[in-house]
């Protein structure tokens, strides 16, 4: 812990560095994705079977190379962000909202509501994602909206359990008692005293699950359940590129890197948000 002193003085600077880098990565990629219709008007669909699998940094027209169908990898990576970010972010938001709410209620009230909600959570938890996905998509038909729905339906339980776990410990803390003693109503205790104190793990889990869900889309593709392969997506590119790992690494590595920078950006923002929400962290180690 020798460096502890140095850390405290450099902390405020570091926190803003996290923010800056986070905005730079996540924001930069989002911006590129948002601008993709202007940057790549053909939507990354321009196929040219004659110029397939050009390695990166060799052809000026295809800086990141081309895929097995001769499509520009850069264009597809940028355009592919649209689906991937929508899937990643919407599914996580949906799951977080439902899961956190259920977790708060179950953990705070305990008793019957807890029992019912948590058994419901158990049921959901006991249904493996891939199988649910297969059945759900088989019954409802495929499509990006359904993929997002499946993710929400299977993932909210994670948040519910995590939140409930933390709430169980929190509700025994003295400051919750003291809020109750003052006459603060249950709703307000839950949302202004408990929620901010459980947000740390949730924020972390959220930012991680964005990555996870972008990748889940590729697992679905791997199993043949994904969405229209014509619409580029990072997950789809990774799945399609897997057979080319030995011959054309760039087909799947660049979408992977895109995911990495997005996730890195989001996580930096998440860390920053966590710190921001935790005042004690600002001055103590």
């Amino acid at each position, binding site marked *: 812990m020798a460096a502890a002193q140095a850390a405290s003085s450099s902390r405020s600077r570091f926190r803003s560095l996290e923010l800056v880098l986070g905005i730079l990565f996540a924001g930069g990629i989002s911006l590129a994705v948002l601008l993709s219709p202007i940057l790549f008007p053909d939507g990354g669909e321009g196929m040219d079977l004659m110029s397939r699998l050009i390695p990166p940094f060799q052809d000026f027209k295809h800086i990141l190379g081309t895929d097995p169908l001769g499509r520009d990898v850069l264009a597809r990576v940028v355009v592919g962000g649209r689906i991937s970010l929508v899937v990643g972010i919407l599914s996580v938001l949906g799951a977080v909202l439902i899961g956190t709410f259920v977790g708060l209620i179950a953990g705070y009230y305990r008793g019957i509501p807890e029992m019912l909600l948590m058994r419901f959570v158990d049921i959901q938890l006991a*249904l493996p994602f891939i*199988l649910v996905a297969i059945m759900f998509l088989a019954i409802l038909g495929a499509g990006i909206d359904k993929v997002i729905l499946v993710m929400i339906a299977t993932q909210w339980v994670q948040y519910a359990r995590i939140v409930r776990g933390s709430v169980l410990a929190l509700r025994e803390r003295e400051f919750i008692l003291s809020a109750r003693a003052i006459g603060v109503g249950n709703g307000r205790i839950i949302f202004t005293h408990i929620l901010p104190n459980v947000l740390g793990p949730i924020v972390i889990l959220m930012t991680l699950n964005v990555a996870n869900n972008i990748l889940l889309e590729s697992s679905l593709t791997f199993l043949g359940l994904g969405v229209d392969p014509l619409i580029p997506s990072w997950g789809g590119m990774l799945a399609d590129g897997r057979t080319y790992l030995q011959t054309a690494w760039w087909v799947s590595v660049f979408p992977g890197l895109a995911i990495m920078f997005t996730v890195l950006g989001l996580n930096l923002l998440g860390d920053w948000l966590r710190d921001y929400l935790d005042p004690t962290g600002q001055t103590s180690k």
Partner: protein
Amino acid sequence: MAGFITKRLLQALFVILAVTLIVSFAIRLSGDPAIMLMGGGNVTEQDLQNIRQALGLERPFHVQYLSFLQGIFVGDLGRSFIGNTPVSALIGQALPATLLLAFTSLLISIVLSVPLGIHAAVHRGRWPDQLIRILSLVGLSFPNFWLAIMLVLLFSIFLGILPPSGMEGPESFVMPALTMAIILTATNVRLVRTSMLETLSQQYIMVARSKGLRDRIVLYKHALRNSAIPLVTYIGVQFGNLIGSIVIVERVFNWPGMGTLAFDAVSNRDYPVLQGTIAVLALFIVLINLAVDIAYGLIDPRIRTE
């Protein structure tokens, strides 16, 4: 305690009932096993009828489900539509393979993520922290099948030291377990780090330090246990996720486990196998989460009151 456990076990039974009911019902909405068994060749409606009759599929749903339940109570999970193998025999073979894999990867992940997460928290904002955080994200940025293929390329083809697939000796565990552990670790490291940060600012940690305790004891005894609740919860949740994602890892590594079994059962609409595997997996997931709930009380005595 005993009361709590019996109560929860009864509830677990209910959960398993619900899960199998949902799965049995849903799978019947999405395809006909008779057609799957016929493989789409020269089939007439009469042929299909024959097969349905032979498999008992012409009975109403509730009758089929009830007979499945009856079977469960006498330990008979029925027979696979394909090859007529008893489901219990299939599960008996696949379950150890999957559990072994799942627990190994969980274990690897815990062994890796706890020290890394703590180290990151302690050195918050400085390079060890940044490095650990960034490395953990690399593990999250590529899907498990992709990581698996990379590992195979590295260890089996380039270095030639590990078998690329199959479950043979202990060495065949390395890559599948590692593939899953990498992804689990990425998440767990960050979770440990956040909960640790929360705990490290508490006064009792300072008191522990004032006693002259070694950092290791301060961190691993005093702080870790106070940060353990989210971690333990998440491990319970992860076990469920693990079972979900094990399908893919098992496929890539040709692992004869429950994931493969369940996935094939869905693909073939092999109802008895699917119902059986889901029931068994549900049982394990529910038990793990029950263990987690019991662990809460062991970890934090304040939760024990109820």
